[in-house]
């Protein structure tokens, strides 16, 4: 569950928290796109390091580190699969190139997790809903979205209770081979899904009895406004995108191996 810990919002105030969530989202999307268009290690490293000032400025270092730690397992899987496939396709040799490629793919994943983690760590569910609403998405969808986000910690807690209840009936989650272990989770998942559905129905009834959707056009108490910080972020975002596209199209990117001066000679197995 530690991946999710890195996405949990905590109410603190920082220049990053105060940014307009719409702009922040565009920024995250720009980072996302940039990470996708590069296959090389160096630009991905730059992208990774570029987030660090944001994290420090927002004061969410601990949560961010936790989400990074949570991502290590998947990152390891990505590294291994990339490495093994390029190892096989290169004819069973380890080259500096395929090693670098595997590291780059892993770093790409880490950059994606990192940027989304920063976004969710610094944007309250309320702000997120507000942002959706003010981009003219129907209120029903906005509400469903923010409710889903808000219920994640509740569900996590419920999952813990269910696990306790099944353990108290002798269920051992860690017992058996791989398939058996997956099957062990059925007694956890079914009650979790059932209670989530039940909870949502109850919530719907409770809301309807409090006149949800009674008026066609809703107004908001808070309205999102752009500030100077938001403009700065727009400039940064556009700059990153423009630079990334320019570099991609017109410049050659040296590989780490070229820079380090061919430390790695191909090795045959």
């Amino acid at each position, binding site marked *: 569950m530690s991946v999710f810990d890195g996405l949990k919002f905590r109410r603190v105030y920082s220049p990053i928290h105060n940014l307009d969530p719409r702009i922040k989202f565009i920024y995250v999307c720009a980072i996302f796109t940039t990470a996708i268009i590069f296959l090389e290690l160096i630009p991905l490293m730059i992208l990774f390091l570029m987030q660090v000032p944001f994290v420090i400025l927002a004061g969410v270092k601990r949560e961010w580190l936790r989400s990074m730690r949570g991502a290590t397992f998947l990152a390891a899987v990505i590294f291994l699969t990339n490495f093994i496939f390029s190892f096989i396709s290169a004819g069973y040799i380890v080259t500096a190139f395929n090693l670098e490629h595997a590291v780059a793919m892993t770093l790409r994943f880490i950059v994606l997790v990192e940027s989304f983690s920063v976004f969710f760590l610094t944007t309250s569910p309320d702000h997120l809903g507000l942002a959706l609403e003010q981009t003219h998405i129907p209120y029903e969808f906005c509400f469903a979205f923010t409710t889903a986000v808000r219920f994640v910690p509740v569900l996590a807690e*419920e999952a813990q*209770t*269910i696990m*306790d*209840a*099944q*353990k*108290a*009936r*002798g*269920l*051992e989650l860690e017992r058996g081979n791989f398939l058996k272990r997956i099957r062990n989770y*059925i*007694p956890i998942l*079914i*009650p979790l899904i*059932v*209670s989530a559905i*039940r909870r949502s129905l109850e919530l719907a009834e409770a809301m309807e009895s409090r006149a949800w959707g009674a008026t066609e056009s809703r107004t908001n108490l808070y309205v999102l406004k752009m500030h100077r910080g938001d403009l700065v972020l727009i400039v940064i975002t556009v700059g990153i995108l423009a630079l990334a596209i320019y570099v991609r199209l017109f410049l050659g990117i040296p590989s780490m191996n070229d820079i380090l001066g061919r430390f790695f000679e191909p090795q045959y197995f």
Partner: protein
Amino acid sequence: MIEVENVYFTYPNGVEALKGASLKIKNGDFVAIMGENGAGKTTLVKHFNGLLKATRGTVLIDGVDTTKVSVAKLARKVGFVFQNPDSQLFSETVEQEIAFGLKNFGFKEKTIKSRVTWALKLLDLAQYRKTSPFMLSGGERKRVALASVLAWNPKILILDEPTIGQDHRQKEKLLQFILQMKTQRKTIIIVTHDVEFVAECNPRVLLMRQGKITADGEARKVLTNPEILIQASIVPPQITQIFLRLSDFGLPKEVIDIYEAREELLNFLERKVK
């Protein structure tokens, strides 16, 4: 025998739920743990089957340290019925639900069958054998959860809030059932807010407040002592409240039982008439 020695427990989020709780529960004891919300009742009983491990101090079940064995191993001895049955029901039929624990403990197919039938009968669920547990009412689901734990016949039985959502008849049945378990020398621990139910059962009562045990004694003594009850946010049973207010007339204070109350009142009236 459950021995809890100076146990402290802190949740990962930093909440200190137990602050030096110590107690002993002998085999065959019937104990009600009461106290305000967040007093640490459920946290305490979760130590008995090893779901939680003490941050400091020790919990021994029949002399075995709970930190040394798995929950599954302890669960064979310590049955724990959770407050909300929905946090455990998942099978297609009530029968399979009850068999779940038995299968986990590796009982033989034949034994499983007979134990399931026994548990179904005991809790009045025989007609629902093939029904989906999700189709049952709240009270029935609660009984299925109870049956699914009783099926493997644990020596110690912990019931977390067993009376919530039960109508009077079901409460009465629960009481009968607990008394029956008592005659079988089972250790029964209930966590509850239901003071009237506790007054009817007359168990040993433990009061908890802010992670500590503040009172431990017979229901008759604890539930009739307003000073210690107020600390634990508990109101005495209605009968006791009447007798507390009538104590100026020479009536006894320590009354929690309706039959006893009747006797006392009749005696009092007789004395007055004479």
